[in-house]
């Protein structure tokens, strides 16, 4: 996808802390984050090419997952073009589509994966990090011989290609569109406020995703906790996903607020402390009341961080949760 942006060379960046916050988010968070994800997925692909046993691939898969958690909350622009974010991170998988689609592929030994173009036509449920997690960790997919090896190579190649495309599009057009929001000819961001709103929305929805999905899904209800719904429980890293995504969101909040936002900082610190010290790697403890309460306390702290950012950082940026999204109808 091309981001047609016409802007004047040498145009002064608008003065003020807000524009600086957008610049800082791009330079300190977004571009390095996508570069790291692109590097990590390239390494994962290379490893799979060299040795396609699960034991060999797992460390690099974890590295790619770590890198994704640094950028997975940026649900706009190149990551969302061509449905990439959904194909990279098909979770939550409410209907078990990933396991079913992978099993079908393996039974059929479908040659569609012989080419990158073919792999890109697979159901999004059978692509990306979470499909790879199943192949690498679930006993159901333990030994699939030559086809299983080809599938791992195809999926890691596909993932690395998507990561490279996202990085390339950010480097060659999209970052400039965001930096020069509101300039004549910029048809991606029509105003500077849109740039701030887009990043702020990514921050808020990233926190909601942690509270509602990463923590909320395994919590289920008090009567019926659902630990098997935890993200990445097969790889034993549900808690780690929460820690790393909170860290990334905290970094984004810091970048956006270059004047002091002490209450937001404190709320993030508290949530990150709770996440770090939880000692419940796959949220298995949600099945007993005490363990569930600890996860619930963390969930509340994440929601507090969202509310605090909304109250303190939002006004500093001149944006809000949204005229329509905040007021049901």
């Amino acid at each position, binding site marked *: 996808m091309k981001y047609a942006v016409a802007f004047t060379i040498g145009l002064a960046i608008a003065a003020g802390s807000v524009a600086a916050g957008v610049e800082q988010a791009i330079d300190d968070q977004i571009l390095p984050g996508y570069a790291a994800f692109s590097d990590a997925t390239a390494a994962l692909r290379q490893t799979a090419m060299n040795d396609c046993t699960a034991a060999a691939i797992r460390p690099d898969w974890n590295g790619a997952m770590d890198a994704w958690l640094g950028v997975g909350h940026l649900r706009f622009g190149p990551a969302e073009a061509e449905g990439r974010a959904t194909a990279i991170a*098909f979770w939550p998988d409410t209907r078990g589509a990933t396991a079913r689609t992978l099993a079908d592929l393996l039974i059929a030994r479908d040659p569609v994966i012989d080419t990158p173009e073919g792999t890109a036509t697979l159901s999004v449920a059978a692509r990306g990090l979470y499909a790879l997690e199943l192949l690498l960790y679930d006993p159901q997919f333990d030994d699939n011989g030559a086809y299983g090896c080809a599938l791992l190579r195809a999926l890691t190649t596909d993932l690395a290609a998507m990561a490279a495309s996202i990085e390339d599009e950010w480097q060659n057009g999209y970052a400039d569109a965001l930096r020069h929001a509101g300039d004549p000819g910029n048809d991606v961001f029509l105003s500077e406020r849109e740039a701030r709103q887009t990043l702020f929305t990514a921050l808020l929805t990233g926190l909601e995703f942690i509270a509602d999905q990463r923590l909320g899904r395994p919590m289920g209800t008090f009567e019926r906790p659902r630990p098997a719904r935890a993200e990445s429980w097969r790889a034993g890293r549900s808690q780690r996903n929460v820690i790393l995504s909170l860290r990334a969101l905290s970094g984004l909040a810091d970048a956006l607020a270059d004047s002091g936002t002490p209450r937001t900082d404190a709320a993030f610190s508290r949530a990150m402390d709770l996440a770090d010290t939880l000692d419940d790697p796959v949220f298995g403890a949600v099945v007993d009341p005490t363990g569930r309460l600890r996860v619930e306390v963390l969930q509340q702290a994440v929601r507090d961080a969202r509310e605090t950012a909304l109250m303190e950082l939002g006004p500093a940026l001149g944006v809000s949760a949204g005229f329509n999204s905040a007021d049901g109808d």
Partner: protein
Amino acid sequence: MTSRRRFLATLAATAALPAAGWAEVGSPDYLAAAREPDGTFALFGLTAQGQDTLRIPLPARGHAAAGHPVRAQAVAFARRPGTYALVIDCARGTVLHRLAAPEGHHFSGHGTYSLDATTLYTAEIEDATGIGQIGFWDVDSGYARSGWIASGGIGPHEILRLPGREVIVVANGGIVVAPDDDRTKLNIDTMRPSLSYLAPTGGVIDRVELDSDLRKNSIRHLAIADDGTVALAMQWEGDGDIMPPLLGLHRMGHKPVLCDLPGPVASRVQGYAGSVAASAQGQSVAITCPRGGLAALFDGNGAYIGKIERPDICGVSPAEIGFTATDGLGGLSRIADNRLQPLRATERAWDNHLVRI
């Protein structure tokens, strides 16, 4: 759009109506309410290219509007508590009539006109019970109250009329709200939303309820394709760990088709669809999900085909090609070929609905 315009223009000429027609106010394709940068509210007429054709100040935040099919008259509903609606002469910018909700009732915020455009229908809710009714207002008698029929359910929200037929389609949302704030929901555990097809005589032509596991999926907004296929957008009131379909497609006499979002998309939208639009030929349907900052697109069979990203997107209506959408950041955009193309940036915060005239 053009042929429909011509038909209506002919209708207008035949009836020899004295009031100004839409052509006299710049032929807007859409109506939308917005908050201005200074905090005041107004109703705007917009062309398909997103240009203003009219601006009428409103006393408070608007809800949806209804445009008379022929005359340049718009009905703007107050948002909360919804006790009045204003009939606005869009040529002069004046309030022609102030409609008061019947004693003990409030407007839901949506209305539509009869096939011959002589009657305005409004969705109304009894404060104490949530029981719904459709109010009738006689256009030629200065919008005098001329009757009502039962809506067939609790908490009706959007109403529309089937194209070319005198059948009123009602989204009975099923929710009873506290009379004093219109927000506190009182009956979530027992709610039973429904879709009703009503004759103006009060006869129920068809009525649809979702399966019992979807009883907490409030049917709130509607769009109708030319062939009478109704697209219904829903808002989930149940547990947050369930991600139900937020779009249904229904044809009278058939079972509804429910349209799922892929899990990763569903997880972002918080069980909330704000508006729905169907293309005239029914080959594509869009729901807006402001809480996820996206609009989801479906084909005419209800299969998900993709999404576009836009913070606080909510208003959506069919365009000549694709859809036009509005958002709380002031943007007006075109959605076509599974992509979003901004048309115009304003300093306004566009309200929930973009209504096609």
